[in-house]
């Protein structure tokens, strides 16, 4: 047991906890029995305070490892603490890709379950839990296997449940067959937001993967100019010399915290301009490596240090299809407030799953990285919360570091059912986190 300072990827609210590293289900069960307050943690890629617990016990899941054989049907059982990076290193050479990956490979499988992560293919394949067949879950009231058919309530409370129903120790999921380690990418530049949104609404169905990068710093006619990239896995016949190679370790890293003001309106404007102009105006079926397409930021280790000591927040919301204008108004509000924001990520969501606290809903999602510092920022984001709420949308827990608890209840109608399940398996409210305390998800 060691005392350690823990924080999320945004590095905003550090807190101290006792960190324990269990090696198996029995260790986890013993810790749950011995701790009055406890939460599991993987690679700490949640942006806010989801995987930390001040004054409590944090279970590091990285020793819960092991990758089973990948069956002919793509089914594999993986230890909770295995990262997507580790899984891909083994699976790509065998012709298998993870069914869903977030923008980084550096998340654990259990972390992907806890946040029910989504990727560029949500409009086609749904979120991570859609591909989970079953998982082993240790709760304060016992250890069991849960699946969409075995204790489905507990299964659907656990996916997207931010670790608050128990500690996942293994996950069985179905992988996606691939023929090469490349993606054929179509790129298109759009001068404004309406153009790119129309293109996504009409054309996303033709691609397995789709995402747009939006510039939130430009005002006027070019407000919300965007680069849309969409792709499909390349078959053997599509590329000259097909290979199946796993991801490479990053070669670049950020050795120290940059000064907090490095990312300011001026530098971000310049970056966005360069980014926009360096993208091809129109490019069709350009082969890209899987890691280039899915995990561009993984090429620079510890890139979050660029935001300096004060850190940054990521604001990600989703709204139903009919409320696409909320995306436009949100970007307008940001670009007019002068709050600097790096290129935002815009994507369409397909159907939601039954996860009680799962984030995605059919419609649009927008994610923005915002450095902490401008005094206007907290108020601007509170305003955006109101807009999102009025549109029937919600905020993503895995990214959040500043939402208020009253809004959570309206944004997540499944919260009541979630708390019922939580109280059944965790009647003494042992499973909690700084996020759960802040947003009142503890069940107390």
């Amino acid at each position: 047991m060691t005392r350690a300072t823990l924080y999320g990827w945004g590095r905003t609210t550090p807190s101290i906890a006792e960190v324990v590293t269990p090696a198996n289900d029995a260790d986890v069960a013993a810790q749950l029995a011995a701790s009055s307050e406890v939460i599991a943690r993987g690679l700490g890629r949640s942006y806010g305070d989801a995987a930390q617990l001040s004054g409590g016990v944090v279970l590091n899941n990285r020793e819960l490892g092991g990758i089973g054989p990948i069956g002919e049907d793509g089914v594999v059982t993986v230890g909770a603490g295995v990262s997507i990076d580790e899984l891909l290193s083994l699976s790509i050479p065998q012709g298998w890709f993870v069914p869903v990956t977030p923008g980084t490979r550096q998340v654990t499988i259990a972390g992907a379950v806890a946040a029910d992560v989504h990727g560029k293919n949500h409009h086609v394949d749904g979120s991570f839990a859609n591909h989970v067949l079953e998982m082993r879950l240790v709760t304060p009231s016992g250890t069991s296997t849960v699946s969409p058919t075995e204790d489905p309530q507990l299964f659907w409370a656990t996916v997207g449940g931010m670790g608050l129903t128990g500690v996942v120790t293994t996950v069985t999921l179905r992988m996606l067959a691939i023929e090469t380690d490349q993606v054929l990418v179509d790129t298109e530049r759009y001068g404004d937001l309406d153009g790119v949104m129309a293109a996504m609404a009409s054309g996303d169905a033709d691609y397995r993967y789709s995402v747009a990068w939006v510039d939130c710093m430009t005002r006027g006619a070019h407000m919300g100019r965007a680069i849309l990239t969409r792709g499909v896995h390349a078959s053997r016949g599509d590329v000259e010399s097909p290979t199946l190679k796993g991801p490479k370790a990053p070669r670049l890293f950020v050795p120290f915290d940059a000064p907090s003001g490095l990312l300011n309106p001026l530098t971000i404007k310049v970056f966005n301009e360069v980014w926009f102009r360096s993208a091809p105006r129109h490019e069709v079926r350009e082969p890209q490596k899987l890691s280039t397409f899915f995990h561009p930021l993984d090429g620079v280790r510890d890139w979050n240090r660029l935001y300096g000591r004060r850190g940054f927040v990521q604001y990600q919301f989703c709204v139903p299809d009919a409320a696409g204008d909320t995306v436009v108004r949100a970007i307008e509000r940001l670009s007019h407030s002068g709050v600097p924001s790096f290129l935002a990520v815009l994507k369409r969501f397909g159907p939601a799953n039954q996860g009680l606290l799962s984030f995605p809903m059919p419609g649009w999602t927008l994610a923005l990285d915002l450095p902490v510092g401008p005094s206007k920022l907290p108020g601007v984001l509170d305003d955006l919360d109101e807009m999102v709420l009025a549109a029937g949308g919600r905020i993503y827990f895995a990214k959040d570091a500043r939402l208020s608890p009253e809004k959570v209840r309206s944004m997540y109608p499944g919260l009541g059912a979630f708390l019922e399940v939580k109280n059944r398996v965790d009647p003494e409210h042992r499973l909690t986190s700084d996020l759960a305390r802040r947003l009142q998800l503890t069940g107390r």
Partner: protein
Amino acid sequence: MENAFGQPQNVVVLGGSSDIARAIMKKLCAARAHTVVLAGRNQVLLDAAAEEAREFGATKTDTVLFDAEDPTNAARTVAESFDKVGEQVDLVVVAVGMLGDQMADENDAAAAARLATVNFTWPVAALAEVRRRLVAQGSGRILVLTSVSGVRVRRTMYLYGGTKAGLDRLCDGLADSLEGTGVTLQLVRAGVVRTKMTAGRAEPPFTTGPDEVAENVMRGLARGERVIWSPPILRYVFAIMRHLPRSIFRKIADR
């Protein structure tokens, strides 16, 4: 829990009926604070402050009575305040203090000692208990109100300025001692503020109202500044004042 912008949910204010504390508390409640416990010496004023906290968004408020002239009650006052919050405390504001009357107090041993107790000894005793509790919970912030009058003490208010200087310097070391504990301490060095404490006195340059102090405190909490100056320009004014030759300082300070 506190959020990414340093906005707390559970707050304890020691000296909770002071005008500056109330202005800060209003802003905290308008942001994220929902539980506020106010400790002070006057129940009527505390009740009014608690009412104000609820008006601005707090859902749970409580009060604790104490007398800052008796440092033996400091630990008990802190304990009672934390118990009334009932959850982890995100922020403790230490706003205990009195201006005194220099002309009357400087030749009065009892009065001088009283000023030292209220401005220094009681807060130091309370901070020891606050420190112990926050370090145990692994997170939290302490905000201590000192004063620019402690940066360079002038002869017309050396009792007030000197006691605040003691607290200020002590807290600087205390803040360093918290490195790696998850707890942080920030100082607020305000210039002259229009409050009931300063009513009737002449206003020197850079005098502000309590709301401006609160505004600067909110920004300082978000940025995690060790010393929050209010107004911010005083950082530079006092960088000069501190190094002025004594004879020149006396002339400026006496004006």
